[in-house]
Structure formats: structure tokens, C-alpha cells
């Protein structure tokens, strides 16, 4: 691939992530998908490797990975099991929000727990009637002394079934708030969601808050900053998903090349047929192009460049749509066997469809990217 674009240390970390994924995730991913849950061991193993503390500063017990290394982590985990990558995403979003917006007291209390996996984070924004239009959030937070009382209904919350620390978007009048809520607090009712199309082991849940008391010290930033807090977490989520999609596309490519090289039809391997070659070529170019956009987003993030958010939008948009095309073609290359639950490419296709929806649907990203298109217009050299 392109090892000249990153350091030997980053390449070494990447190989370590791949070895972990191939040993602990890939052999079990089909079963996770079938059982619609990750093994408890997976949480413990990922915590022991420092993966759950990837975005936590070393001072708080984390591994503080640089953006590119974090990207590689998501790519390699995503190539083996998109549900495990989802864990990195939502847990990382809570860590990121805490690091960016938390008070010293909040960071000292929760970041070490999140880094060790003793606390598991989930991002509770979506509601039955509120998806992409997050500003219309209906969950309410009412002041109660120095704390808040939460009432509302969240849905499709990734790892909401098991998370112990929920980052919840709520409304108080015209202001939005980002609150940290204990998953087991009185007034929190969680109902697992089963039968999802893709990333089926992501342990989604509906979460109802009924007069749930949120004690003082649980508000991130201030009232009115709920949406910026969640937007910053979503930015990280998109970065994670984009890299995960590169991994998913790579898995589609590798499965397709293996099958097309060995499967004989009309007296020669499938890879010898030009229409199959077209699909393989599109996968190669698509995966590489997505990875390059992810590399650009990682570099911007590392430099604190103002276009980092936009670069992440581009990467997520391209990588998620690429993964969908790659997965569709991977099933096509495999023919009937690709439609079987026994074949990983059928899972890749279901997972890829999910990627086009989570952390910003394709159409939302297209709107945001188009809204910034003037930035790509070359200035007049005479101006």
C-alpha cells in the first residue's frame, strides 16, 4: 500500500491492530452478527489493548493515539467486524466530547474509567421523531436544584443496551444541553433492539427517561451548547466510520480477489473475465481513494486545521458510498454463494448499507459539502 505516507511507528501499530482483529474478531464476527451481540470478552480485550482509551490523554490513563493511528485502528477493526468498530466509534465520541468540553473534575472522574473500559460510553441523540434534524430534539431537561430532571425517549442508540455512561442531547426551552447520564440511574429504561439490517452486534437500544434525576456536575459546557458538543462528537464519529468503511471496502476487495482467482467458469478464473475485472478495478481504486481522503482528514485533524471538519465530511461521504458499491460488487462476484449467510460478503453488504446512514446520512453530508463548495473555487489570480 502507501507506507511512505506514514511513519514506521504508525505502520507497526497498524500491523498490531490487524493481528488483533484477525485473531479475536474475524473468526467470530459471523457469530456476533447472528447472535446480535459481542462477546463480553471483546470489551475486555479491547480495553486491555488500550483501544477504548485511544482518545483519552495519557495523563488520564489513555493511549492518546494520533489521528492517523486512530484511523488505522478503525480500519483494521472495521475490516474484521463493523460492530466492534461501532464500539470504538460511540465510545470514542463520548471520550472526545469529555476531553473537549469537560471540566477538570469531569475529566478526572470519567476519563480514566472510560480508558480502562470500566465505563462504556454511548451517544444518545436520535429519537423516534428526530433523526438528522437534531435541532428538533424533544427530550427535555428541567432544572431541579443544581441538577436536572430528564424526560424523553431515545432510539437506535448504539451499544445503548450495555453502556454505562450516556451522552444525552436534551432541550430546556430554546436551549440544548449535553448531559452525562448513568446508564443504570433510576428513571432510565433500556429496551434492546433486535433484527437490524446491519452492524447487528452493535447492541442497539431504545432508552426512555422518566423523571430521571441528573445530579449536578453532569452538564458538558453550558446550557445552549448542547448541539455544538454533540456536533463535535459527531465529527469524531464520522472520522471513525470513514476509516471503518475503508476497512470494510478492503475486506470486500480481498474476498473478491480470492474468490475470483480460484473460481473457474468457462474454463478460466472469474478474474480473467473483463466484466469481473471492472468490479475488481473499481474496488481497488475506490478503497485507495477513500483511504487517501481519510489520510487527508487525519492530517488536518492532527494539525488542528480549520478544514478538518470538512475533510472528515468528504472522507465519510466517499468511504461510506464506496463501501456500499464494493460490498454490492463483492456479492455479485461471489454469485449465489455471496447471498448465503455463510459468506462474509453478505454481512459486508448489510453492514455497508448502515454506513451510509449512521453519523450523518449521505444526503446530509452532500448538503454540508455543497454548502462549503465555494472553498474549492480557485481565487482569481488577478483579484
Amino acid at each position, binding site marked *: 500500500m502507501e507506507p511512505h505516507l506514514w511513519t514506521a511507528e504508525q505502520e507497526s501499530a497498524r500491523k498490531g491492530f490487524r493481528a488483533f482483529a484477525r485473531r479475536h474478531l474475524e473468526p467470530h464476527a459471523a457469530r456476533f452478527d447472528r447472535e446480535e451481540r459481542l462477546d463480553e470478552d471483546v470489551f475486555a480485550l479491547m480495553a486491555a489493548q488500550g483501544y477504548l482509551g485511544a482518545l483519552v490523554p495519557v495523563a488520564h490513563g489513555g493511549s492518546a493515539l494520533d489521528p492517523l493511528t486512530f484511523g488505522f485502528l478503525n480500519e483494521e477493526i472495521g475490516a474484521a467486524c463493523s460492530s466492534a468498530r461501532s464500539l470504538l466509534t460511540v465510545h470514542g465520541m463520548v471520550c472526545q466530547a469529555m476531553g473537549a468540553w469537560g471540566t477538570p473534575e469531569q475529566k478526572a472522574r470519567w476519563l480514566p474509567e472510560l480508558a480502562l473500559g470500566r465505563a462504556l460510553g454511548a451517544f444518545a441523540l436520535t429519537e423516534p421523531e428526530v433523526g438528522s434534524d437534531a435541532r428538533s430534539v424533544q427530550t427535555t431537561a428541567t432544572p431541579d436544584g443544581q441538577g436536572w430532571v430528564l424526560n424523553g425517549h431515545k432510539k437506535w442508540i448504539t451499544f445503548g443496551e450495555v453502556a454505562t455512561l450516556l451522552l444525552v442531547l436534551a432541550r430546556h426551552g430554546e436551549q440544548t444541553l449535553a448531559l452525562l447520564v448513568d446508564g443504570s440511574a433510576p428513571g432510565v429504561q433500556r429496551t434492546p433492539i433486535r433484527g437490524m439490517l446491519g452492524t447487528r452486534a452493535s447492541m442497539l437500544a431504545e432508552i426512555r427517561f422518566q423523571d430521571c434525576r441528573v445530579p449536578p456536575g453532569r452538564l458538558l459546557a453550558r446550557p445552549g451548547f448542547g448541539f455544538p458538543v454533540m*456536533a463535535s462528537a459527531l465529527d469524531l464519529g464520522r472520522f471513525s466510520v470513514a476509516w471503518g468503511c475503508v476497512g470494510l471496502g478492503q475486506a470486500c476487495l480481498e474476498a473478491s480477489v480470492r474468490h475470483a482467482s480460484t473460481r473457474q467458469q468457462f474454463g478460466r478464473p472469474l478474474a480473467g473475465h473483463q466484466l469481473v475485472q471492472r468490479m475488481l478495478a473499481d474496488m481497488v481504486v475506490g478503497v485507495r481513494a477513500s483511504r487517501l481522503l481519510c489520510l487527508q482528514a487525519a492530517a488536518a485533524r492532527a494539525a488542528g486545521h480549520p478544514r478538518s471538519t470538512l475533510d472528515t465530511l468528504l472522507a465519510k461521504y466517499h468511504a461510506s458510498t464506496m463501501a456500499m458499491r464494493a460490498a454490492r460488487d463483492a456479492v455479485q462476484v461471489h454469485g449465489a454463494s455471496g447471498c448465503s449467510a455463510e459468506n462474509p460478503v453478505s454481512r459486508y453488504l448489510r453492514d455497508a448499507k448502515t454506513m451510509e446512514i449512521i453519523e450523518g446520512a449521505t444526503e446530509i453530508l452532500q448538503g454540508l459539502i455543497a454548502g462549503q463548495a465555494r472553498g474549492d473555487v480557485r481565487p482569481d489570480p488577478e483579484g
Partner: protein
Amino acid sequence: MNPDSRQVALRAFLGNLCEVSTLGDQDDLFAGGFVNSLYLVSLLNFVQGEFGVVLDEEDFDMDNFRSIQAVLDFVARKRGEV
């Protein structure tokens, strides 16, 4: 960095996010659609990194970031210049 340099740097930064040729220093960045919540995070990072201020919890007030002039005034206050 003096206040004039800050104004130039801030306009250059915002030029990465939105069309600034028609943006006045007093214009509302949010109401005018120049900056949305997604990019507010970049703006906050820029203010901290470029102007050497550390944001405290009480600084998270939209009015501090509502316009170019509001940001410049806020930075000056944080740096004890006014």
C-alpha cells in the same frame, strides 16, 4: 498578536469555512448562516490555539462567538487587555 492582526487572522480562518467577502465584523455568524454548530467547534479551537486563550466553562456563551467583533472583544477580555 495585536487586535488588528487578530481581525485579519480571524477573517482568514473564517474564509476556510464560509464566504467572508460580504461578512461584516458585526454580522451575526450564526443567524447569517456563516457558521453552523459543526464549525463552531473549529472556531473555538482556533481561538484557543491562535490567540492563546484557554476557554473556561463560563466562556461557553454563544454571545462570545456571535460575530467577528464579539470574538475579538472576548479575546481582548480574556487576555486582560480591556
